[in-house]
């Protein structure tokens, strides 16, 4: 990893974190019409994986997808405008927080149905292979989705056909309100790869260098035609399942400890300072730049027009009724 990449990873994580914190405020102010699912604490996964991808590589994401969109290069203004249901959003207000697209950047959809993205990513991988490209597809999903049939069907197919797909499981400990201990028969999701004859690895999802390295290997394998990989990133969902979640299924102490111990930006910032890649002053400057960028995006969103009711019909194919 060169120094530029190291700093880019930190900047991407900060952008995601700051955007999510602003969206939490916008939600409280009534600017976000639906309770958003925020990604705070999981930034290292999106940043570490997407740093290995180019614009022609594709991702599918989840209901908790803002971070993936930013890391994959979606314009943060359009992302925040979409979450705020504005006409200038990435889907003109038709998709919303759970359904975001930027195909020119390879964001082929954040999918609101848990587990729904994996078969689609598998099909994208199939197309990329049939079209004889060396591009890859990445599917982000949680440990909850790894209990869905789509996970098992998709991994079997991708392995059978050696598709260029990387399945990235963000094991954040909770499937909506149900803890992994209450829902999942294995401790490490990665061992499920064994059942499908593909490599499976577990990394610390709060350490962007670990995520980056695992994804790099998987992406290289996929580009070389050697097939899929399952990467499990252990992390922790610092916020509730959605904004406003009372989180009765876990203790406040647990979340407070996680906040102290599992901050991917602090970890990586400290690594870079110890290595001499970054000074505290440079960090402050980076943070100020990111704050300014996100503030500009928020301003853009709030100054953007809201769609009119009849804008709902602009794509109606069969106006019989």
């Amino acid at each position, binding site marked *: 990893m060169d120094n530029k990449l190291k700093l880019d990873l930190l900047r991407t994580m900060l952008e995601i974190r700051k955007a999510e914190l602003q969206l939490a405020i916008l939600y409280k102010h009534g600017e976000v019409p639906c309770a958003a699912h925020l990604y705070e604490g999981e930034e290292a996964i999106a940043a570490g994986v997407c740093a290995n991808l180019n614009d022609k590589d*594709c991702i*599918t994401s989840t209901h908790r997808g803002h971070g993936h969109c930013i890391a994959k290069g979606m314009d943060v203004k359009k992302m925040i405008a979409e979450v705020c249901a504005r006409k200038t959003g990435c*889907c*003109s207000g*038709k*998709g919303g927080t759970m*359904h975001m*697209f*930027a*195909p020119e950047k390879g964001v*082929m*959809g954040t*999918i*609101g*149905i848990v587990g*729904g993205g*994996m*078969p*689609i*990513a*598998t*099909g*994208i*991988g*199939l*197309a*990329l292979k*049939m*079209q004889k490209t060396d591009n890859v*597809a990445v599917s982000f999903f949680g440990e909850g989705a790894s209990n869905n*049939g*789509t996970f098992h*069907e*998709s991994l*079997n*197919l991708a392995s*059978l056909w050696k598709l260029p797909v990387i399945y990235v499981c963000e094991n954040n400990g909770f499937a909506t309100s149900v803890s992994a201990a209450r829902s999942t028969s294995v401790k490490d999701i990665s061992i499920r790869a064994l059942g499908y004859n593909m490599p499976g690895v577990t990394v610390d999802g709060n350490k962007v260098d670990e995520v980056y390295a695992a994804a790099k290997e998987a992406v290289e394998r996929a580009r070389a035609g050697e097939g899929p990989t399952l990467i499990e990133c252990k992390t922790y969902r610092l916020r509730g399942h959605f904004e406003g979640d009372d989180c009765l299924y876990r203790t406040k102490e647990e979340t407070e400890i996680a906040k102290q111990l599992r901050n991917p930006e602090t970890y990586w910032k400290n690594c870079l300072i110890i290595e001499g890649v970054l000074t505290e002053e440079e960090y402050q400057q980076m943070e100020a730049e990111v704050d300014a960028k996100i503030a500009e995006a928020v301003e853009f969103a709030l100054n953007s027009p809201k769609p009119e009711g009849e804008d709902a019909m*602009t*794509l*109606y*194919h*069969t106006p*019989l009724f």
Partner: protein
Amino acid sequence: MAARKIRFVEALREGMRQEMERDERVFVIGEGVGPHGSCFKQTDGFVAQFGDDRSKDTPISEMAISGCGVGAAMMGMRPIVDLMWIDFMTLATDQICNQAAKLNYMSDGQVKVPVVYRASSGASMSNSAQHSGSFYSWFANIPGLTVVVPSTPYDAKGLIVSAIREESPVLYFEHKRLLNTKGEVPEEEYTVPIGVADIKKEGTDITVVATGVEVKYTLDACKKFLDKEGISVEVVDPRTIWPYDKETILNSVKKTGKLLVVDEGFRVCGFASEIVAMVCEEGMEYLKQAPEQYNTVHTTIPFAPAMEDYVFPNPAKIADRIRKMVAK
């Protein structure tokens, strides 16, 4: 020279084959579409002609296969996903109804999902409760999906070609009892437009809107009984369940003043109810009497032949319904 007559399944296969020859983005994916050539030989010979990759056998993984269709279609391919039997599509409904149907809209048109989902449907030979479904109306209820139900070999070929060329998802249902019926089919490629009905028989006493195999059964009822009795039936085949051809249906009812809809799907919230509702809303002044529906009995489909015969429409029972309506 007499026109060539071939079977429905051959016409469907020819339509897919010609599209695969014309456009290398088109491929078939599904359980048994490989060397076996599909359950009813719909893809017979495809592996030899196009190779394993374009007539791609899959595991029994309806969610993954149907999602592969979505993903590949978004990337510019033209997948035909063969889900074998309509009954198995219940396993694929998230990918069909939440993903394929909606991604174009959710993305505000940034992605397109030109995928075809095909399955055999309908009653046939004691296939019983879990292999006799006709629930295409479910899918017509989802904005973003087009649903076609051809009834003749000619329409089977023309509609599969149109379905493959559509820019949005199309569900194509081939009734098992139609697969071996013969009809005139041109050798060259042609399309049957989606959303356009066909008057399969002109008449003056009553309009029968029939779908799939019920088109054949209604025509059989005319040939066997009603023509001789002097009852003149107009048989309208919508061919497309959604979007359906309002104008042709309303014009026919305007002419005859009577409407019977015959559909193998169940009545409740089904296609027949939709047509009756539409005609009542938009063509009440044409109606001389209350429109009627004739559907499969609202029950789980039984196994024993006598019970199976009892629950499904057939030509004799359709003739009875028509006689009663015309006599009123």
